[in-house]
């Protein structure tokens, strides 16, 4: 039976839901001229939720509602970062939304609802919570992608996202039903205890395959990446940034809960060694394919959002390399990678948002030509972001890659680490091309790319991009925090 303690454990989520409903009502009663209030309230709501997560963090891992909801160190870190990244997105998105007359209230409330979905997904302790958290997140995202109703590209992206997302959810649900059939439980901890002694190991393997297909879709790992480029390009940039950053933390959490908590890790009693090796191998294949397809196809892209989409696919490859290790060391490296990617990608799309203005999207690489002459500071910020994505030392992204590759070597998969390193070198090419266009190309006649004059955007974006440099030197405490979460 649920009791008061359960509700206290869920306090950040409950608070966020109530706040989202209040914002929704407030939006209905505000005059169009006053809607800017929603923006500031939205940011405050997210920051307070992040504070609630840290403040109420129990010293030990606790569960609520009969194991349906887990609040542990992993959940704390991922929740804090997804809330912070979403707050960053709110800051970056405002001028873009205002210029395109995208409804303010709906964007903020749907994004907060999606964030609630992310939080439930991160804390999921049972197959039902995983599925429902995912649905809450994706349903809000479909609507967000279609929010720019006058753009045919947006609607097309939304339909593609919806159909493929439904397929992924169906596949995930099918896999879950098989796992339930084999283990007679929905609870991930109980499943973990039962996988070793199930009467139908084949049924379990099939369930595992279907669940990994679902996870692959949500992460955007090849060969389940088809929706990523179209959705990234078609969605309004203010939504692409959300799909490209905060949602990756949720996808990592989902993979971790289903695979590590549910199916078992290396050296953890109660699980089945056979099953662990099976999922390790499948994830390794996904990782190699993602690295290859993501990096190779990104080379020929001319659209910046599409380029970042393919770069996401390759980054998910690195994240999966961390998971392959299947030990706390690998998980902490993968989580560190997910956080570094979310922060970097938020800054990358943030710069695109800041350079866009009414009637001009700034999504072609050629639009950045000669940015250094027009706005040296933004060119420098973009340089930091691109170097971090490419993994150039001493930036944040480099240490993410380093830790992930190190975990692959420690797992005895030297070949995987070599593939990762080669892919990083290929990736360097297209990131450097963006830098070259900004610094060495002459600006095209007639285009006048200038950053938004909005002060909050400029300051927060600068802080975000400089944080990539600072964290490159002081990544130790963050990684130690990640490691502590998995002990």
């Amino acid at each position, binding site marked *: 039976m*649920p009791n008061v303690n359960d509700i206290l454990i869920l306090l950040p989520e409950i608070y966020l839901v109530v706040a989202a409903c209040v914002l929704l009502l407030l939006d209905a009663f505000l005059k169009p001229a006053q809607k800017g209030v929603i923006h500031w309230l939205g940011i405050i709501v997210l920051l307070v939720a992040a504070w609630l997560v840290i403040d109420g963090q129990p010293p030990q891992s606790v569960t609520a509602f009969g194991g349906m909801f887990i609040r542990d160190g992993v959940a704390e870190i991922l929740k804090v970062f997804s809330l912070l990244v979403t707050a960053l997105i709110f800051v970056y998105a405002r001028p873009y939304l205002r210029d395109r007359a995208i409804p303010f209230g709906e964007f903020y409330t749907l994004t907060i609802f999606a964030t609630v979905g992310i939080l439930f997904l991160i804390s999921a302790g049972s197959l039902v919570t995983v599925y429902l958290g995912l649905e809450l997140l994706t349903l809000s995202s479909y609507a967000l992608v279609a929010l720019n109703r006058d753009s045919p590209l947006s609607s097309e992206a939304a339909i593609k996202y919806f159909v493929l997302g439904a397929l992924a959810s169906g596949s995930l649900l099918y896999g879950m039903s098989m796992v339930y059939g084999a283990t007679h439980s929905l609870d991930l901890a109980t499943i973990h205890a039962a996988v070793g002694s199930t*009467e139908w190991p084949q049924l379990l393997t099939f369930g595992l395959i279907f669940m990994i297909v679902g996870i692959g879709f949500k992460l955007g790992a090849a060969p389940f990446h088809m929706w990523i480029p179209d959705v990234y390009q078609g969605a309004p940039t203010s939504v692409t940034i959300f799909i490209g950053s905060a949602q990756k933390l949720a996808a990592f959490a989902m993979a971790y809960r289903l695979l590590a908590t549910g199916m078992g890790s290396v050296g953890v009693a109660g699980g089945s060694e056979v099953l662990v090796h099976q999922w390790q191998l499948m994830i390794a294949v996904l990782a190699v394919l993602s690295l290859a397809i993501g990096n190779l196809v990104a080379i020929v892209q001319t659209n910046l959002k599409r380029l970042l989409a393919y770069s996401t696919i390759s980054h998910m490859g690195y994240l999966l390399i961390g998971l392959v290790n299947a030990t706390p060391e690998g998980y902490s490296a993968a989580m560190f990678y997910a956080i570094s990617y979310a922060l970097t990608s938020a800054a990358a799309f943030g710069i695109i948002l800041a350079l866009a203005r009414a009637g001009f999207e700034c999504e072609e690489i050629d639009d950045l030509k000669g940015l250094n002459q027009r706005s040296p500071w933004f060119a420098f910020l973009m340089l930091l972001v691109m170097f971090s994505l490419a993994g150039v030392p001493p930036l944040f992204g480099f240490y993410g890659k380093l830790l992930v590759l190190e975990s692959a070597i420690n797992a005895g998969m030297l070949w995987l680490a070599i593939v990762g390193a080669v892919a990083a070198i290929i990736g360097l090419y297209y990131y450097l091309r963006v830098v070259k266009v900004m610094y060495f190309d002459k600006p095209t006649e007639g285009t006048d790319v200038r950053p938004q004059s909005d002060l909050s955007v400029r300051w927060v974006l600068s802080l975000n991009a400089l944080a990539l440099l600072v964290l490159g030197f002081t990544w130790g405490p963050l990684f130690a925090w990640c490691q502590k979460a998995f002990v």
Partner: protein
Amino acid sequence: MNTDLLQLLCFYLFGGVAVIGALMVITLRNSVHAVLSLVLTFFSMACVWLLAEAEFLAIALVVVYVGAVMVLFLFVVMMLDIKQEVVREGFIRYLPVGVVVAVVMLVEMLAMIGVRAMHAHTLGANPAGASNVAWLGKALYTQFLLPFEIAALILTVGIVAAVALTLRQRAGVRHQTASQQVAVRATDRVRVVKMAVEQPASVLPAPVVEPTQENAP
């Protein structure tokens, strides 16, 4: 003939009808027939659920899906003027590949898991002799309270999304405002104009109305 065998036969019967219905949904040319086949599929699935002793869910499926959702669906399909040829384009071309993939997957799964595994379990037994509805209600509000609430959230998001995507405030749309209509006064609408009395025309003939294109029946 024992009851187990009878149950099994019923299962295959209803399952078979459900599969055939589902196939008809995607192959029939007439979309109204396709919707009716979907009703058949739902109904057969409700029968399968009845066999699994999930009476409440079976009835809910019939009442909600067959009774309400599908009727609405039928309305929509009848109102839309869908060109069949366009929808069907490429269906035959991709059919062989789809069939091969589906058959290979089915064979693989049957070979790996085995048909016997499906029979090894009797379908879910009714816990502790309680009535189905009572058990479901109790489970929803105790064990599954959290998922139940998240599902409610998902429905809220559904409503918000539907309104956000369809509500448009276009310029120049004529709509009624009840409060303004009620508050209207006769003087706002009718203006009495004082003017001099017209003198009757003496010998002008009455104008002849030509039947135009619009007036013609």
